[in-house]
Structures are given as structure tokens and as C-alpha cells.
């Protein structure tokens, strides 16, 4: 109650961690797959995240938003991982420019398969996809996403807006393939 978790025995600590944090490991894995696009790397990332979370568990207040707390740790771990691999890219200019200059939003095709949705989503640039997945798939609030990604809330909102536009463009490509998307030309593709 008073935050004296360091007085707990290992058994108590494990019991609390198992109750509070472990149920979210599947959610972490799903997001880790979006971050890494590779099963082995996703498993490593989830494992590192859970170990880090257990080490920092004394700082977590029981009953608060454990899922968001774990997701924040995982994004920090991923940023560190990318820095170590020399893969951390801050901005993808081309996609930024495309997203900014789309003058309209193509309508959402009605006939589209789950695989096409996932493929379209995977083609959205990483920093847009991150917010889109956290918001529209994992159902985090804008405020929670702002904390998880350590960016201002305005940035979350603008990235989401652009991400949705880019996703619609990708989906319009599939619609065109089926012969019922008339909007692609207007998009300048």
C-alpha cells in the first residue's frame, strides 16, 4: 500500500507480477510482431521487456494501467534495440510528403480480406503504423499512446490522421486490383 514492495519475498513478487503483468504478454507479442516483423526478434523483445518490467516492478503501482506500462517499456527496449542495430530512423520523408499532400480520403473498400488488411497495414511506414496499431487495434487512448511513444499528444493525433489516410490509399490499391476503385488517379498514383 505504501509502495514498500521491496519488502516482499520473491514468491510474493512473482505472484503479483504473474497476476498483474503476465496476462498482457500476448498483447505485447502482437505489438512486438509489428515492431520487428520477425517471430524470433519479437519473442526476444517480449522476453527482454518482461525481465525489465520485473526488475522495475517496485515502481509500478498495483491496479493501475499495467498494459500501458508494459507497452511503454517495450517501446523503449525496441528503440534501444534499433539504436544498437543502427536501424533507428527518425523520419521517412517521402511518406510524410505523400501523407501531407493527399487532398482527399479514398473511401474504404467493402470487399477486402483479412490478409489484404494486414498487408496494407504492414506497408504503412513504421512511425505511422505504431500509432495506428496502438490506437485502432490495441485500443489505447491518445494520452496513453503519447506516454508509450514519448511524443506529444498533438504528434499522436497528426500521425494517426496521416496513418489512416495512407492506409486508405493502400487499400484503394487493392480495390483497384478488383476493378472497383476509381480514386487512385485522383490520388496521383
Amino acid at each position, binding site marked *: 500500500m505504501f509502495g514498500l514492495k521491496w519488502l516482499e519475498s520473491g514468491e510474493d513478487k512473482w505472484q503479483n507480477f504473474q497476476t498483474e503483468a503476465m496476462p498482457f*504478454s*500476448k498483447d505485447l*507479442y502482437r505489438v512486438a510482431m509489428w515492431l520487428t516483423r520477425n517471430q524470433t526478434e519479437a519473442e526476444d523483445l517480449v522476453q527482454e521487456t518482461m525481465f525489465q518490467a520485473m526488475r522495475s516492478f517496485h515502481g509500478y503501482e498495483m491496479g493501475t494501467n499495467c498494459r500501458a506500462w508494459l507497452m511503454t517499456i517495450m517501446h523503449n527496449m525496441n528503440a534501444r534495440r534499433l539504436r544498437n542495430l543502427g536501424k533507428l530512423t527518425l523520419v521517412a520523408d517521402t511518406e510524410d510528403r505523400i501523407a501531407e499532400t493527399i487532398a482527399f480520403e479514398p473511401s*474504404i473498400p467493402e470487399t477486402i480480406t483479412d490478409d489484404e488488411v*494486414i498487408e496494407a*497495414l504492414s506497408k504503412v511506414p513504421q512511425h505511422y503504423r505504431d500509432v495506428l496499431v496502438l490506437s*485502432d487495434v490495441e485500443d489505447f487512448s491518445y494520452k496513453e499512446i503519447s506516454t508509450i511513444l514519448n511524443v506529444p499528444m498533438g504528434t499522436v493525433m497528426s500521425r494517426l*490522421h496521416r496513418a489512416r489516410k495512407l492506409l486508405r490509399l493502400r487499400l484503394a490499391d487493392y480495390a483497384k486490383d478488383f476493378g472497383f476503385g476509381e480514386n487512385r488517379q485522383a490520388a496521383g498514383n
Partner: protein
Amino acid sequence: MQCRDFREISDSYLSDELLVETNHQVFQHMEHCSECRADFTARRKFREKMRSAVLNADEFQMSPTFLNRLNANLESAALSQKSWRRMFSGSGWLVPAMASLLIGFVVFGVAYFSYPGGNEVATTYKSMIQGLTEISMKAVGDHKDCALEKRPRWEAVSGTDYPEKAVFIEKVLMPLKAKFSDNVEMLNAHDCVYDGKLFTHVVLKDGARIVSVFIDNSGEIPVGESADDTITSDSNQGFQVASFHNKTQAVFVVSDLPETENIRIARTLSAVFSV
């Protein structure tokens, strides 16, 4: 509100990220504009599709082997850490640190209890939380005894008239239909007593799921002067209970849905009840 404005913010509406007043404007616009209603429905359906596509895709499922390994590794690491008893032995810094902490607690306690408003605020907050918890438990009992036990009866009489039908269609059913699915049905609305507690009970159905909305008009929870848009969530006997209050009412949403879904229902209703 113009259609263009609506389309700019409809995704935020879908995510429950708008102010209560704006929610109301969006809702009003949708009632009168069939094109925007259709656009909103398309957005909602696509979001549901994207969600289910990811949640059900094989590549996003954690393998049971990895889960077992993760569990075993974490457990072994946790149990190998020093227990608190061992932490005390041989730690020269720990005794002075504990002494300082104890002094700190004593000083804080004296300051807190000598502050005239401190006790009062703490007591009011404590009684509010206790009140919410007690009524939440009764709401779960009522959900089981009334909504679930009498489900065949409610389904049989669904569509017939019941008291204040129009009010609950406007305040409960329509916002949920707009936000979630056209398939949401209201099976019944009635006054209901459980364990001495009187609720107005709205029974909703979406496919196989039954959701209860309990409205407490008794004013038994000291909710304070102003309305609060906080949603409180708890679980009890395997059911999720999300609650919120306005100036005069406390509302409890009870279901066996996942916690986030149950909270989303409460958040949608809180926007309407706060107006």
C-alpha cells in the same frame, strides 16, 4: 456541424477522444445526415475488421511453447532474488534508511492529521469508493439474477412496451448502436431491487452477449458537487463492472465482455449522461 467537420473528427469520435459537447454535436449531426452516418458505419466496420484481422491472424499469436518458456524463465529469476529477510542481514545501510523512513512517516502522519481538511477529504473519498464497490457488487448480483436468469423471458417480451422505453432508447440504445453495432438490441428496461438496492435496469443484447446498464438515482454515493467524467472499472465474480456518475446519478455497466470493451460502453454512455 458541417459534413466536412464531421469527417475530420469521426475517427476521434470512434476512439472516444472528443469532448462531451463535441460528442453530442457529432451524434446530432449523424441523426440528420445519412451520408455521414454511412461513412461513420464504414469507418467503424473497417476498424473492427482491422482489429479482428490482426487479433485472429496466426502470425500474431504467441506460441504456447514460448509462453511456457517465458513463464518458467521469469519465475526462476523472480524466485532466485533475495527475500526481504536476507536483505536485512549484512546490509549496513538498511537500518539507518529504515529509521529515516520511520521518522518521515511519523512527521507526515502528524502533519496530515493536524490539517483540518485532510480527514474530511479522505473520509469523503473513502466513503465514495466504498459506496461504489458495494453497489458494484449488487449490480453484478442483479445482472446474474435478473438479466441472465430471466433472459428467456426478456427475449420473449422483447419489442413490447415497457416504462420509459423512449428515454432509454435515446439515452442508452441509440448511442451504443451508433458506436458499436446496429445489432445491439434493448431487451427490457425496468425498476429492479437486489439485496435492498433499487436500480433502473436496462438489459441489452448483442448477439450472444448480454450487457446490463444499472442506473442508481438514489444519490447514496457522495459524488460531490460537480460531474466527473472518470470511468471506474472493476471485476467481480467473473464480470466486468465499469461505472461513472454525473451530478445526480451513478451508472454501472456489467457484462462478461473484456474490460476494455466494457469501459468503452461506459464511456459512450457517460458522454450522453453528462449532457
